[in-house]
């Protein structure tokens, strides 16, 4: 009987290298700030506005749902609590803290106006409205 030659094994090392690189890429590009965007808020389109560049790390993002519910991060709050939060923020970081209001396109202006009034009341002057330019690629 003729002796069979052992089959050469597949070299796994380059593939594992590539897989690790892909995982590192995914981990690095993972959006850890996803919590600040409320999925229930549908933004209005503003295709002509400038895209957000480097954002101030102190930026406070406030979500306002269709029914006027206020949400910062994962926390729902009443207008009174919002005022207390903003006052605390101003006491700690000053009045230059930017506030981005992510209002639902169908929320009544009175709910948005209430927030801008609170900001104005505590001395915050950098107030912005969020809109969407593109769904992404």
């Amino acid at each position, binding site marked *: 009987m003729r002796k069979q030659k052992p089959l050469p094994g597949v070299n796994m090392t380059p593939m594992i290298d590539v897989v690790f690189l892909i995982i590192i890429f995914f981990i690095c590009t993972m959006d850890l700030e996803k919590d600040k965007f409320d999925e229930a808020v549908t933004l209005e389109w503003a295709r002509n506005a400038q*895209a957000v560049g480097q954002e101030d790390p102190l930026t406070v993002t406030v979500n306002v749902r269709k029914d006027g519910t206020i949400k910062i991060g994962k926390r729902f709050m009443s207008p009174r609590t919002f005022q207390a939060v903003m006052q605390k923020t101003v006491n700690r970081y000053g009045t230059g803290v930017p506030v981005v209001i992510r209002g639902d396109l169908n929320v009544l*202006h009175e709910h948005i106006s209430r927030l801008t009034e609170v900001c104005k009341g505590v001395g915050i002057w950098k107030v912005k409205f969020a809109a969407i330019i593109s769904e992404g690629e």
Partner: protein
Amino acid sequence: MARRKRGRKRRLDDDDGGIPVTPMIDVVFLLLIYFIATLEPIPIFAHLNVYTPSPDAPPKEKPVDPPSLIRIEVHAEGYTFDGVPVTDRQLDGFLGTLARASKTQSVLIMCSMDAPHGKLVKVLNFCARHELENLSIMDAKR
């Protein structure tokens, strides 16, 4: 001596002595599949400024010939441009004409409390399109 060395090498190459990498590769592949499956396109956002003067900003010098103020009203039903009801398209056109004359033209946007926020953002978007910068937003009281 040579025979002993060869024997040691054979022992090191043995599968029994090495670290088993198969479970690690399984986990790595699972992670990769998870990341690919949960991959979502990242939307591009814009931040439209609501112009409020900074408390530290120096007071603006008064222009010699103050420009007339254009007033846009945002209602639940639609818009008015200097008191005349207009459609989205007409408003965009008017703002374009205005911007061609002067980009520093002051525009006062008055928003009714019952108007949806999307309508106000739309006006700000039109202003951004025509690079009108001198905007003020006010609440129209009922």
